[in-house]
């Protein structure tokens, strides 16, 4: 095995760990009337990972990082939904990143296009998985749709943060470490 490929496999595992830590440690509580919602950076880090490692490895990292978190924290029954969401997110991010041709002509605006797409698709998949979750506990379809809608505000805030933060972090990474990384 080429050492560079091994390195990339290891890095994928480590990025998955960073994503996991992004959910478990990087949390900002958001003020709300009910419950204790918080912004977490799991999805943000997942998008960054896809930008850094490309679709194949990035998607695996995202699926492992986010899926493992659910599995180890008592959300095993819905972990498969999280994993699917991660896969879709990775695919969209990878396609848009390629589409805007960032690698050839790096412009920050293009990164915002990527993160916008990521934020929107996250919104959509959260809604869909919300529906499936409700159906799993036996609500009727119309109730599932409504319920999924009403829990969107929290996802929206997360998506907005994702949209704003990904370009910021990617630029910071590109300026410091990515140039040294040869994979």
């Amino acid at each position, binding site marked *: 095995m080429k050492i560079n490929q091994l390195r990339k496999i290891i890095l994928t595992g480590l990025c998955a760990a960073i994503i996991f830590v992004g959910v478990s440690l990087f949390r900002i509580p958001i003020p709300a009337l009910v419950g204790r919602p918080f912004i977490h950076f799991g999805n943000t880090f997942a998008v960054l990972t896809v930008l850094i490692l490309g679709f194949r490895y990035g998607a695996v990292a995202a699926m492992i990082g986010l899926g493992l978190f659910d599995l180890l924290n008592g959300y095993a029954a819905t972990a498969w939904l999280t994993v699917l969401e991660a896969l879709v997110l990775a695919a969209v991010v990878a396609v848009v990143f390629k589409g805007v041709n960032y690698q050839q002509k790096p412009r920050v605006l293009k990164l915002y296009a990527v993160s916008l797409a990521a934020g929107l698709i996250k919104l959509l998949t959260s809604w869909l998985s919300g529906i499936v979750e409700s159906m799993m506990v036996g609500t009727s379809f119309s109730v599932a749709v409504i319920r999924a809608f009403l829990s969107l505000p929290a996802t929206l805030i997360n998506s907005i943060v994702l949209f704003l933060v990904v370009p910021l972090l990617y630029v*910071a990474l590109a*300026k*410091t*470490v990515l140039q*040294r990384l040869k994979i």
Partner: protein
Amino acid sequence: MAIIFQNVTHVYQADGPLAYTGLKDISFQIRDGSYTAIIGRTGSGKSTLVQHINALLKPTAGKITVSDHIITPETKNKHLKPLRKKVGVVFQFPEQQLFADTVIKDISFGPKNFGMAEKDAEQLALTMLKKVNLSSELAQKSPFELSGGQMRRVAIAGVLASQPDILILDEPTAGLDPKGHQELMELFAQLNRQGTTIILISHQMEDVAQYSNQVLVMEKARLIRDDTPQAIFTDKTFLQEHQLLQPESTKFARLLADRGFKFARLPITTADLVNQIVKELGS
């Protein structure tokens, strides 16, 4: 900048199933401008102890006074900035906290956070670069292109840049080669001579003996001794009981003493060892 600990206890994850007592009923004082060393085996609570001085950790019980700041279990996270500005910490392997794209930006990060204007902060950063023996040509380079030893210096400069009155050093030279080690220890000694209170965590008894004037010995979350280095390093039974090493010079002096050599008092530094041998042989 006197520091006073009064019956300080710290319990990690106090209300979880994995509660762990990191500090148990610790009391001591550190005088303004002193050079204090903290020694003890790994896991004895040294790092836990020093993180209370700038309230990165808060006591579960007890009280800490750092000049006019008082830290108790009730202390809120707000308004800690003035304290944090006064107390600089060089953590273990500080190069692992570098993040900016240029050396100068990284060094000026602290002062800017503490409210200094960008221009002034960068000016200060250049001064600090010189202080840690790095050429000012490095200022615009990426810190990640530097060698390990240089990165360490940049990180230390970043802490010094806030011009702290108290400087906490957690094994600052671990992993450096002897030359790098020597130069940094001299830098800290110089800062101490200029009035900075220094608190050094170290496993290197030579350094402790040479530079400090007060030694705190930690064992299993307790402070088991607070004394001068001379008293501690010449107390063989104490060292043996607590599995602490003695400085090389003390060890060597003991070998000589066993053969019949007479020392006025057991030396704890190389300079003292040499002086006493010369005195004995020269007369």
